[in-house]
């Protein structure tokens, strides 16, 4: 649940985005700029959060009244080495938040729904945080770190579901991989029959929810998901249809039991009632158009 310190949307005077070179960070940067919000993008090229001077260098950026969005991560976090590195990165950012607490007006952390137990089939913000993966464990630990560092500064923790968009650097099982395969004319191989249902969220929607949280100076936890889950099979078929390619979608022998993840997004409705998530078919069309435009 989010509580808004600004009941009506007010543009923040300046937003520092830590991780502005990444998929979510770059989209967020562009979205905030399109709203005329002053932004400072911190990328790995400008500050490597794993370097000893990172804390000092980041602190230099902070001005009175800034909001800070922390989205930088080595993701997906797959092993203990990456876990430790991700925590080190967060340590640097957390120290800056603590040191500059008097100057920061708002902090937003982009976490993940991986913090919930794998068997949570209907997720809400009240679902138990019980990560079953390094990635989830990383975000759960980082949430606690940033929450502790933020103290009295309003902090919005946003937990997006599976993201899709053209700039996604990962090739994980789901719409992004399906999209690339379809456009390369390669067959899409499903795990089992692709029965598992997931909530796939268009990257622009994540950026917009971040903007809304910033403009409302929101405090609390919010899942970022559409409230509609689709099976991987349906998504693959939709991707193929959108791409207009003669690509087959092939099942394999199932290795693991079917699990589903749905979201009850009442808290998002209550926080941002006027915001409407992009339908997956519309989102995939936009991705296809962006892709075709680049060709």
């Amino acid at each position: 649940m989010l509580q808004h310190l600004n009941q009506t949307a007010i543009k923040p005077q300046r937003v520092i985005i830590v991780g502005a070179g990444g998929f979510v960070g770059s989209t967020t940067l562009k979205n905030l700029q399109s709203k005329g919000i002053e932004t400072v993008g911190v990328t790995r090229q400008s500050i490597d959060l794993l370097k000893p001077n990172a804390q000092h260098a980041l602190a230099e950026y902070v001005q009175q009244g800034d909001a800070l969005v922390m989205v930088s991560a080595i993701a997906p976090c797959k092993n203990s080495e990456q876990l430790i590195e991700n925590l080190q990165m967060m340590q640097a950012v957390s120290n800056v938040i603590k040191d500059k607490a008097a100057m920061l007006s708002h902090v937003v952390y982009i976490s993940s729904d991986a913090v919930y137990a794998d068997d949570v089939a209907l997720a809400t913000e009240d679902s138990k945080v019980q990560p079953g993966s390094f990635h989830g464990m990383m975000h759960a630990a980082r949430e606690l770190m940033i929450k502790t560092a933020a103290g009295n500064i309003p902090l919005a923790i946003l937990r997006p579901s599976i993201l899709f968009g053209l700039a996604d650097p990962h090739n994980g099982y789901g719409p992004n991989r399906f999209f690339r395969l379809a456009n390369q004319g390669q067959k899409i191989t499903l795990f089992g029959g692709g029965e598992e249902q997931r909530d796939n969220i268009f990257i622009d929607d994540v950026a917009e929810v971040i903007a809304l949280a910033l403009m409302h100076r929101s405090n609390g936890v919010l899942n970022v998901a559409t409230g509609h889950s689709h099976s991987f099979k349906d998504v693959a078929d939709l991707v193929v249809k959108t791409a207009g390619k003669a690509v087959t979608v092939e099942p394999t022998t199932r290795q693991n039991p079917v699990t589903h993840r749905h979201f009850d997004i009442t808290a998002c409705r209550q926080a941002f009632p006027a915001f409407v998530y992009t339908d997956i078919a519309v989102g995939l069309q936009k991705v296809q158009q962006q892709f075709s435009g680049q060709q």
Partner: protein
Amino acid sequence: MSSSTTIGYAGMTHLGINYAVAGAGKGFNIIGYDPNTAVIKQLNAHQAPVIEPGLEEALQQRESFLSFTDQIQRLSSCDVVYIAPDIVTNDNGQSDLTYIKDLINKVIPVLNSEAVLVVLAQVPPGFTRSIDLPAYKKYYQVETLVFGQALIRAEQPERYMVGCAAPSEPLAPKLAQYLQAFNCPILPMLYESAELAKIAINCCLVASVSIANTLGEICENIGANWSEIVPALKLDKRIGPHAYLQAGLGLSGGNLERDLATVVNLANEYGTDQRVIQALRDNSTHRRNWPLKTLFATVLEKNSQAKIAVLGLTYKENTHSLKNSPAIKLLEDIATFDITAYDPVIKTLDPKYSAKLAVTAIDAARDADVLVIMTPWHEFKELNFTILANVMRSKQIIDPFKVLNADKAKQHDFKYFTLGQ
């Protein structure tokens, strides 16, 4: 007649008044005490400060057996004194016991040497044993008040559950005489058992409703109709004709929430499993948002400019109260949309809700894309589908409580959404 026995009720609450009047109906002398002078004046004028069918008539007819007083000393003539105040609960569903403890401390000094005290209000297990009276002078009796049926249930109880120190010993003679007059089974049990029995009853009721909610929600998704299933369940002897199987919008009012909270707190305190009860609480929270979810899924996700008509604002029909009203919660949640509301008794609304108020239900429905019926006022049953179809922009109705007839709505080409189908 039993006029030699005098029964006192301390606390002229919904509970106290109805039990007192029921006792008078059996020919016992009843003294009703409450420190609130205004309530006592009302009762002495045969006016009921609470609404229950038949209550005012009974106050009048039984006046020779009833006396009401704001003087606590009058209880000294009683053989049995029932303690029946309201117990308020906080937001976590926990009871505030300050008032009942004060009341008991005031009653004890005026009890005569033969009299016994019976706690009738709902208290957590362990409360009665902790009262500073010898065991033979204190009892706990489970109340089974149901608003709207309070007097009839007090007059015709299904059974009495009486908490005492030694269930195998006879009850105090005057208490036994009083309870036997109602001709129902009397079940003596330990104080703690009786205190938990009331909670157990409520847990069973909530469990039934939660089952109805859970399966009703599945019905909504697979094309089944929960209301077709309910009669079949009620014909099963193990479930029964009076089972609570109506899908709803979660718990409200505070009493059931309090009992669930008590069980969870006890389980946590003693390290016993409370997950089932926690699931009942979670289901209640989940179901509360049904109108909002349905509104988004059917209309607002597709049309953010949609005009919404909300019929009914009070928390239930036949009241002016907006407290804890699901309709008001909905207005808050959809404040940014274009809303026109109508309620038969609410004629002004706090401007913070942004909803416009119409003077009739049809006026509210005019040009609306969806009609949401949030309080089952009787007059909404009379809504004419032909007129609605003429005035509304889109023919969609969200009617959680089935105020309207689903088949008729569909005959008039309305998209109709209700709980459980």
